């Protein structure tokens, strides 16, 4: 049963985990209360006890490539019941934030998003580019922006064709960069984690994961912080709804117009058009969901790092500025409306362009880890094991 194991502790990694939210990591005594408390951990090789050991020992590569850190949804049942108050839930959250930094391509972007000092510069890039868009749209005439009242025409100030080019082009680039990081992560998972016994195949694994993510069923199994499910669900669907709205708007106002189709719509699309209904609902969902999660974090639900706040505040503000942009246009207050719309666009591009490096990346990494876990048979093994009756005990010759 005993097996020789060469340990190569990375002391700096231990320090970083402690700094990133796992401050009480070292109080863990490996009693494994956490692994039993966790409602999401499979009974075979459960987490987070083994992850706590890896973190304490500074086993950086093994830990960052461990898909189980992504099976964790930070319910914090483990942290509540931990007899040493080592807060395994927060330790795993810290490790996750280090994981997407670790695999980031280019890697300096991972560092930049983790550093508050780099924030002004990171904001400056979309801010300047959007000023450029504004300059193009306004064609040197800026007076209309500062009117105290009157008609507000966002599409004039920020030509939507230009915005869509930035949106689509940026996204393609970002997806390419993200793909490099995710490939690194996938290969690391394959190299460091033992594969399970039965594999359902990649496609089946993808379908299985999708069926899990769409209703947020893992969150639903949480004990301690189950209320988080609704907040996260609202943000998740709010964001997807907003992306769909943007796609539909692009199609109806720009593509159909370019094609000369009679079905094209004039910008701005307004109520009661279903596209606008979708947009408003999405914005509200992001705003409300964001508010719920922010208030939970403020109440000390779990340790919150810089990355947590940055992402949560940014996505909530996207919802807020989006809703305000609509209201201010209807209220015909150009000076505030344009400023708000500008902020909205800066935040949208801030979120999208830095997605592979900010906490936004958890969406990709978690999905990939869940797919890996399924395709390597981890979930199947666990379900089979939990369904099987307890085998009769026989005493090993030497313990």
């Amino acid at each position, binding site marked *: 049963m005993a097996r020789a194991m060469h340990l190569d502790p990375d002391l700096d990694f231990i320090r970083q985990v402690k700094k990133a939210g796992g401050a009480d990591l070292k109080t863990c005594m*490996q009693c494994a209360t956490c692994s*039993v408390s966790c409602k999401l951990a499979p009974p075979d*090789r459960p987490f987070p006890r083994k992850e706590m050991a890896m973190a304490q020992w500074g086993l950086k590569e093994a830990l960052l490539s461990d898909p189980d850190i992504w099976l964790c949804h930070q319910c914090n049942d483990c942290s509540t019941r931990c*007899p040493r108050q080592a807060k395994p839930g927060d330790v795993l959250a810290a490790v996750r934030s280090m994981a997407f930094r670790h695999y980031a391509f280019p890697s300096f972007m991972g560092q930049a998003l983790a550093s508050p000092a780099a924030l002004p510069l990171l904001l400056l890039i979309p801010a300047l580019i959007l000023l450029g868009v504004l300059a193009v749209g306004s064609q040197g005439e800026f007076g209309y922006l500062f009117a105290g009242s009157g008609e507000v025409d966002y599409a004039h100030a920020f030509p939507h064709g230009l915005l869509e080019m930035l949106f689509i082009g940026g996204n393609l680039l970002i997806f390419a960069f993200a793909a490099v990081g995710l490939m690194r992560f996938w290969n690391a998972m394959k190299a460091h984690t033992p594969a399970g016994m039965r594999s359902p195949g990649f496609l089946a694994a993808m379908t299985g994961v999708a069926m899990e993510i769409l209703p947020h069923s893992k969150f639903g199994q949480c004990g301690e912080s189950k209320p988080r499910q609704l907040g996260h669900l609202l943000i998740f669907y709010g964001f997807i709804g907003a992306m769909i709205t943007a796609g539909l708007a692009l199609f109806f106002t720009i593509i159909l117009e370019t094609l000369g189709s009679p079905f094209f719509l004039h910008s701005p699309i307004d109520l009661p058009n279903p596209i606008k209904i979708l947009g408003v609902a999405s914005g509200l969902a992001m705003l409300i969901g964001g508010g719920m999660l922010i208030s939970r974090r403020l109440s000390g639900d779990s340790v919150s790092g810089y990355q947590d706040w940055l992402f949560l505040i940014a996505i909530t503000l996207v919802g807020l500025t989006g809703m305000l942009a609509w209201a201010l246009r209807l209220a015909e207050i150009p000076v505030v409306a344009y400023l708000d719309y500008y902020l909205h666009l800066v935040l949208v591009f801030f979120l999208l362009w830095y997605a592979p490096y900010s906490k936004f990346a958890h969406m990709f990494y978690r999905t990939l880890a869940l797919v890996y876990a399924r395709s390597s048979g981890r979930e199947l093994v666990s379900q089979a094991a939990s369904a099987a009756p307890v085998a009769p*005990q026989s*005493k090993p010759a030497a313990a």
Partner: protein
Amino acid sequence: MNVPDNGARITADLLVVGGGIAGMTAAIEASEMGLEVVLVEKEPFLGGRVAQFNQYFPKMCPPWCGLEINYRRLRGNDKVRILTLTTVDQASGGPGNCEARLTIHPRYVNENCTACGDCAQACPVDVPDEYNFGLSTRKAVYYRDMAFPPLYVVDPALAGDPRLQACRDACKYEAVDLAMQPVTVTVQAKGIIWATGWQPYDANKLDTLGFGKFPNVVTNVMLERLASAGGPTEGKIRRPSDQGAIGKIAFVQCAGSRDANHLPYCSGVCCAASIKQAQYVREQYPEAEIHLFYIDVRTPGRLEDFYAGAEKDAKIFFHRGKVGEIREAANHNLIVAAENTLTGKVTEMEVEMAVLATGMVPNTAQERPPLDTPLDEWGFVGSSASGVTGAGVASRPADVAASVQQATGSVIQALLAQRR
């Protein structure tokens, strides 16, 4: 020994509070050195927690051994004055000069009692027996082994119950006196030894382990009663739900111990106690599977041999991993869940009974000793500078042997405190 008159003043060298193994030891050793001692005990019997046990580890002898030796030493010893049913109301002074006011609570049975038991037989009132943790009942008039003096006693909460007139009427010796009143006395002593012992950590607070919800989850101290010939089952270990036999049993170590949410410390005795109790089970059930779930087996010193002996048993299994959850299955069986940290798999085992190895909480944590005696962060008596010296588990968690040794030492500590 007669109850002193109300308002009496008694002078002594030491006042020892608590008549368990530690207090008895301290009182006897001090008296054998020539000191005058007053030993007070709030219960009607001596022996305390130890008297409840079935056997001591590691020698597996019954507690009567040690207690009887103490009884013999007390016999003919005119330097120890024993007051049972007695509590300390308040104390003043300091090292060398302490004055304590005691209340001797009424026994409601006088010295005419011959312990014939007619009163109990006639008694129509049954109550849950706290001595057996509610696993059995006793009469409102009852006799306890180790009763001192060896008389029956009436439950003070029921002394006013009119149904108890039947007990009085049944006594041929007119020994039952339901009108008996408490007596207040003052003890002037040079020092106080505080040996008020401990209680098991309240298992009801361990909400994931099912105690109080599932009948077959018991605590280690309850198992002592179940294994004890004088206990509720006359020593037959049977599970509470149906008095069924044991085929598979789990011992849950550190139930609330070493836990920041409960008792932050290790009591240092529960591992050896569970190994001892595994032997109780083995004696009665040669084929039973015994599973012990632990974080670390803490059997220091010679107790390591005791542990090694249990490991030789082919059907005692040690699992490294704390039990995180106990659920109930069909037929009041229990599912005990723990991660085996040596294999990395969660074990969900169905057992017929689970024993929670709860730790020791000093009684001083709830009832502070007098004279502003300092306690440590967990409620154990710290230094003896106040004039109050801790003895036995009032000073630290300990097994019987260590408690007795510590109690002997406490006498010297109490004397030294007077010199400083």
